[in-house]
């Protein structure tokens, strides 16, 4: 717990200070074109694994408008999915799949990242989170096109805007370990067995209810 806190504080300080020190590995490796990449350069307390998604250093906004990097999620397993809040069909079912697991695993976080940067502002994400009764174990993030493309690339999520308001996207729920490495990908709605098994390996046995 303490370690997680330290990482978050480091990240926050780096962001606030507009740190221009040596870029972290992902800064060069991910090679994005955003100018903001130079603004935060936290040296992780422990080096991230080569397959850790937390090497991506894009800056996101959460439902409160606060700047977040994925590495803030270090320290416990996370379930992560990419959705858009205007979605009427599959996205609610993704959230439903994730919520089903919330009651069964006490030390797992839940992350939704929007693929709709135009409509999913922090305010909209906040309304969505309230309407769908997301607990404080959930992190909801919005970011620019380029950051979305990068994260989708590492998570293997395909998506495409098909109308002014709708997207087509693969309904992938990814299980990340405490260090951000992908340990399981659930590729279809409702098929939570593999996800549960992966979380059991990471987070211990199912809570007896």
């Amino acid at each position, binding site marked *: 717990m303490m370690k997680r806190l330290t990482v978050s504080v480091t990240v926050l300080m780096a962001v606030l200070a507009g740190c221009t020190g040596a870029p972290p*590995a*992902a800064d*060069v*490796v*991910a*090679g*994005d*074109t955003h100018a903001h990449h130079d603004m935060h350069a936290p040296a992780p307390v422990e080096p991230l694994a*080569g*397959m*850790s*998604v937390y*090497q991506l250093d894009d800056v996101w906004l959460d439902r409160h408008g606060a700047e977040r990097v994925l590495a803030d999620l270090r320290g416990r397993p996370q379930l992560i999915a990419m*959705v858009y809040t205007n*979605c009427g*069909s*599959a*996205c609610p079912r993704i959230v439903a799949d994730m919520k089903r697991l919330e009651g069964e695993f006490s030390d797992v976080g839940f992350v939704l990242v929007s693929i709709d940067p135009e409509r999913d502002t922090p305010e909209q994400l906040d309304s969505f989170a309230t309407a769908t009764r997301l607990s404080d174990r959930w992190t909801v993030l919005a970011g620019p*096109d*380029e950051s979305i*493309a990068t994260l*989708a*690339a*590492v998570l*293997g*999520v*395909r*998506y*495409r*805007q*098909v*109308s002014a308001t*709708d*997207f*087509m*996207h*693969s*309904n992938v729920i990814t299980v990340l370990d405490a260090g951000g490495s992908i340990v399981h990908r659930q*590729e*279809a*709605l*409702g098929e939570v067995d593999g996800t549960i098994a992966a979380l059991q390996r990471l987070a211990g046995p199912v809570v007896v209810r």
Partner: protein
Amino acid sequence: MRRAPLFLLLVPALAVSAGAGSALQRPLPEGMVRIEGGSYRPLYVQPGETQVQVESFLLDARPVTRGEYEQFLVRHSRWQRGAVPGLFADDGYLRDWESPTSAGETVPKDAPVTHVSWFAARSYCAARGGRLPTTAEWEYVALADERRRDASEADGFLKRVLELTLQRGATRAGAGFRNVWGVYAMHGGVMEWVSDFQSVFAGSDSRVGERREGQLTCAGGATATGDARDYAAFLRYAWRATVDARTTTGSLGFRCAGDLQ
């Protein structure tokens, strides 16, 4: 040919402007040509949509070469073989290079660089102040022959493109032909990364059926299939639908694009 193994469900690409490449200004960056915007009829059509719009942009006349990539690695050592975290490239990254810093002489320096992941290609282009072309942009330029911007309806063009594609030598940067834009090797060279490859969906084939499709994608019903008349394009969409961003192969390279101010 009528029953293709992979039944692709595709809709026309919306060019996603990433806002990159603002550093690209006149005169044209070396090796790039200006592509005038226009529209074209895509291979796979979303219901109700028949044309894809492309804004004017810049495109490398040739795929990025081994020699150019070698130069890139001098200043971007994090992209040397062995230094790249697994998240950003699979184990095959630059596997045909002599050493982490040298492509070697076995293959000519002006041959297209291959065994590069989408992340690597994107970083290279960003380092030049550019970006990868979108699927829409790439396909738009691929419609041209030596004399016409859109030769797709011209006699023999699709057959010629298919033959070039299937013969794929991929060893020279100038493979194929120089089209009316002054762009080389759109056909018959290496396959090339596009920025939005992940907007291409590999849909279900008849064995999988509707139910599965609906489970995999939101708004999945919005897709439509197209005919496979342009089989070379079908093959391009097929590999785009199956690679992931870490993938590296010996026939997959890239060229860069840029925005006009």
